């Protein structure tokens, strides 16, 4: 449940304006789909939300606080490619997030702590449908499985915000539909605020609670240097994907991933 507020953000590369006057108020637990022509700065915008890039001007606030200067564990990410570590197995890829947190010096867990972390990772992997592929290397997975792995890897850190850059662009329609179902389920259950870049409008409207289009209002060749892209359309998706109060899902009888996760050993349970 995280609100994001983007205040008049500009981004220039070497004096060339890429994004200008981007302002956006995002309610907690939104699913924002970002669309726009190639090269208009969608990935740049996402990288700024991630702190992998800093705005030239303007501010980005999360829950009222300025973003830190570096990517942190409260914002997860899935890229179209290169989101998983090729030298680690499926299970190790997910355990890694736990190991970074609990072992500053070696980045590795041993004994009981390791066993516990592996159990938790296996649980999440089962939830995304990779329960039977724990010991495979990423190169042995299909594209869809790799993206599921990347999602699981991000989820183990319980991010408040999840950033997706064309995550399903390379998948065939069948696999994509399956992953859409999974994505919506995870979004509802974890209450993350999600930003997803996509080139597929139907995907944008199917998944998003709000679709934001970037474009360059001035796009003559001589104008390109000085004028960047900005938000040209901002559409709320109808019908809403969940009651605004969210009570419907809180009282619903569906198995909730978050509960399953919270119920794991070593974690305090949450009442609701």
């Amino acid at each position, binding site marked *: 449940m995280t609100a994001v507020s983007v205040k008049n953000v500009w981004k220039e590369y070497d004096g060339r304006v890429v994004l200008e006057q981007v302002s956006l108020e995002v309610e907690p637990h939104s699913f924002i789909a970002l669309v726009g022509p190639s090269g208009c700065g969608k990935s740049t915008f996402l990288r700024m939300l991630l702190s992998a890039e800093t705005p030239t001007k303007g501010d980005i606030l999360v829950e009222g606080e300025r973003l830190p200067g570096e*990517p942190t564990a409260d914002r997860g990410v899935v890229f179209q490619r290169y989101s998983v570590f090729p030298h680690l197995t499926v299970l190790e890829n997910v355990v890694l997030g736990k190991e970074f947190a609990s072992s500053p010096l070696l980045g590795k867990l041993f004994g009981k702590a390791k066993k516990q972390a592996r159990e938790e990772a296996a649980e999440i992997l089962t939830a995304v449908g990779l329960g039977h592929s724990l010991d495979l290397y990423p190169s042995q997975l299909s594209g869809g499985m790799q993206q599921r792995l990347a999602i699981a890897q991000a989820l183990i850190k319980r991010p408040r915000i999840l950033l997706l850059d064309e995550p399903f662009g390379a998948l065939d329609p069948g696999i994509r539909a399956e992953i859409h179902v999974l994505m919506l389920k995870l979004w509802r259950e974890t209450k993350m605020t999600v930003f997803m870049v996509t080139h597929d409008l139907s995907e944008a409207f199917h998944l998003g609670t709000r679709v934001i289009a970037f474009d360059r209002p001035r796009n003559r060749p001589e104008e390109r240097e000085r004028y960047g892209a900005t938000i040209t359309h901002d559409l709320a998706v109808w019908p809403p994907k969940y009651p605004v109060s969210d009570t419907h899902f809180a009282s619903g009888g569906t198995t909730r991933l978050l509960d399953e996760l919270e119920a794991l050993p070593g974690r305090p349970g949450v009442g609701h």
Partner: protein
Amino acid sequence: MPYVRTTFNGFVAVIAMIPPLAILPILFIIFGLGETSKVALIVIGVAPVVMRDMILRVDEMPRELMVKAQTLGASTWQIALRVVVPQMMPRLIDSVRLSLCSAWLFLIAAEAIASQSGLGYRIFLLRRYLAMDTILPYVAWITLLAFALDFGLRRLQHKAFPWFAGRA
């Protein structure tokens, strides 16, 4: 961090430019005519090339992976330890395999110039007598050794880093 790397990079680049054979006499003066000089020559000749190759490989790693590691809560040290170094190991083996060629060159040259033993020494000794029939077996030996070493490294890479062979 980037600053350290640039400096280091430049340093290695300059070192790599020095023709190793040209400093062979210096090595003989420092280390004498024994094995140490030969080993030193091979190390000086091969190490900078391997190091530069490794630096290039690290630069080649997708930035996305580093960002991803940061979003998983990794520190710079943890990224080096758990992400960069493990991915560089099999590439290091590749690099060493390629460098073996020049390593042999340095070894034979060093032995030919100033040694009382070794394969290079014998080949160049026999050259004086135009003893082609005895030189050829030595060449065959060296080739066999080189091949075995290369094969061994490849096997090691395959066994120790199974993820490397099948990667996309």
